[in-house]
């Protein structure tokens, strides 16, 4: 500390400034936790979120001597009054085997609806071994007034899936995001 020729007031001000910078930095850190959390979740599957982009690689091999049970459940979020179901409730697959399942959503209202489905896997550690080559959850789906829509999902399990995961559940929650999309278009700066 080179505080010899500084008065107490000057030293106080200097310490005050340092501490204020720290407080502001910690406020920023709270927001930094958001991308940090997302990265950790991507790496560890902490929150059971599956990849939001389509898998481009085809599995190299099918592990025929292992079967994993995948269960599908659906939930309706805010503003969804129609149907949202999975045609397949559970399926036994070999890791590496490409499987197609169908989901159905309906819009009984008299106006068009934009929906977004959010996937979640339990237990979370299975999430990163689930690869989807096609999924209705990658994009927002528009349900026209009165429409009943078939929404396919194609997936395979990573042949590397750990041997203690014999069963997991993939849940989809469908949300009505019509207003959110309209709000985004109206606002100047999205995000």
């Amino acid at each position: 500390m080179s505080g010899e020729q500084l008065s107490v007031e000057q030293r106080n001000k200097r310490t005050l400034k340092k501490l204020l910078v720290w407080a502001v930095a910690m406020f920023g850190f709270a927001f930094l936790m958001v991308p940090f959390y997302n990265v950790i979740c991507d790496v560890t599957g902490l929150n059971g979120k599956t990849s939001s982009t389509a898998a481009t690689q085809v599995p190299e091999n099918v592990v025929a001597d292992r079967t994993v049970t995948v269960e599908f459940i659906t939930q309706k979020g805010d503003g969804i009054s129609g149907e949202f179901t999975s045609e397949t409730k559970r399926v036994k697959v070999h890791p590496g085997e490409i499987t197609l399942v169908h989901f159905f959503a309906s819009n009984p209202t008299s106006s068009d609806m934009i929906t977004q489905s959010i996937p979640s896997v339990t237990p979370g550690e299975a999430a990163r071994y689930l690869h989807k080559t096609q999924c209705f959850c990658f994009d927002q789906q528009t349900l026209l007034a009165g429409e009943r829509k078939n929404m396919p999902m194609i997936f395979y399990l990573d042949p590397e899936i750990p041997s203690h995961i014999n069963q997991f559940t993939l849940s989809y929650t469908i949300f009505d995001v019509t207003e959110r999309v309209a709000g985004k278009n109206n606002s100047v700066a999205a995000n």
Partner: protein
Amino acid sequence: MSTAAATHDDHHDHHHAPTGLKRWLFSTNHKDIGTLYLWFSFAMFLSGGFLAMVIRAELLEPGMQFVDPEFFNQMTTVHGLVMVFGAVMPATVGLANWMIPLMIGAPDMALPRMNNWSFWILPFAFAILIGSVVMSAFGAGNPSAPNFGWTFYAPLSTKYGPASTDLFILSVHMMGISSIMGAINVVVTVFNMRAPGMTLMKMPLFVWTWLITAFLLIAVIPVLAGAVTMMLTDRHFGTSFFDAAGGGDPVLFQHVFWFFGHPEVYIMILPSFGIVSAIIPAFARKPLFGYASMVYATASIALLSFVVWAHHMFTVGMPLAGTLFFMYMTMLISVPTGVKVFNWVATMWRGSMTFELPMKWAIAFVVLFTCGGLSGLMLAITPVDFQYHDTYFVVAHFHYVLVTGAIFSIFAAAYYWLPKWSGIMPNKTLGELHFWNSLISANLLFFPMHFVGLAGMPRRYADYALQFADYNFWISIGGFWFGLSQLLFLAVAVLCALKKGEKAPAKPWEGAEGLEWEVPSPAPFHTYDTPPVVK
């Protein structure tokens, strides 16, 4: 800058003893501001306590009696918020304001005007928060006060929160600004204003624990501000930090909140450690055992508090490695805490102990805080936490560490330093009644909560299964008893404020050590204008 210092001194000479409302509104004197903080926190303690009485009245018998479940939720929420941010935290800031300059031989806090501001924000912050409860109870249409628990988990507080959530957000922002400014003031004072010869390792432990608390505050209160800002933008500005429909994650809220929330519990308890470390040596008439280890233990508790937050959320589903990490880190905290308890007991060992009021509260603190610590150790074990999570066992745990811990130590501090503050010895008869009634009723109130919790009674419900009826009856009786007992302290404090009672000498406690006992009682408006010499 030396001219500025000179005018500053002139300013003091001009307004040597400002009177009336102005004395308090415009005060830059650490003693007056300390007094304001202490009275404010006691008022909040009684208000938050009143909300708890509503909770206990409803839970006196099974079934719905007095309030509807919606209002009950508002009671639990605002009770928690008022007690944490309105009672415990301002009380310790008040103690810091009064005692730190006296203990380190400084004429005042380093930043007196900021000190004024950091206090006067608080009444407005709590007027906003408590105003929402008043509107809920008496307002037209009974708009709901915040009703999502003091932890305000998203999306309950974002998507499903009542309109008053925005009042709550503003109020929390204001409390946060107040806390950060108060903490900055403590750090600057301790770093720059110590009397010559008062080296860091000569500081009383109360100053040390408060210095570390202040660093915790500056580190985590901005994170709380960040969390409520995200809530605000989620609610009104189209972001989706915590909204799954927009790509956010509600569990993220819990991580951000508890990153603040766990250090927060140490913010509430570390000053208590300092208080007890001042009182036990005074009445055992022995120097504190292991001073240096106390400092290091406090610092390690503070550091560890940043890596244990997820033990509040074991049940959200974490990878095994994560739960193990947080479990072991949590258990590790019991090592420095154990060092502290050991040192307090070792200080009493073969001491010439007397049991004046401050010592009674301090010993009750050591015993009952350790009880709360042990139930915390049980909660740290991940698999059993799955059973205890969100039951009354958790309620029992944190009330043992916060009521019979933090609040008992604040009462110890009040009885110990009231002679210095007011020049009057606290009334012994009332004080004894206050202590024994509080001790017995607090245990009647909180101990059976362990049993109903282990038997599966969930927290935050307005009703319960019939098998919990007998226990809840006695818990409620303990609650009313404890609540009424606190009015005895109001009488003690008012008597001291009115200067009614035995006059206190400069050093009313025979074994007390420290600079604060070298100034007269009551402490004059200005002390240590010339720094004392510290040997």
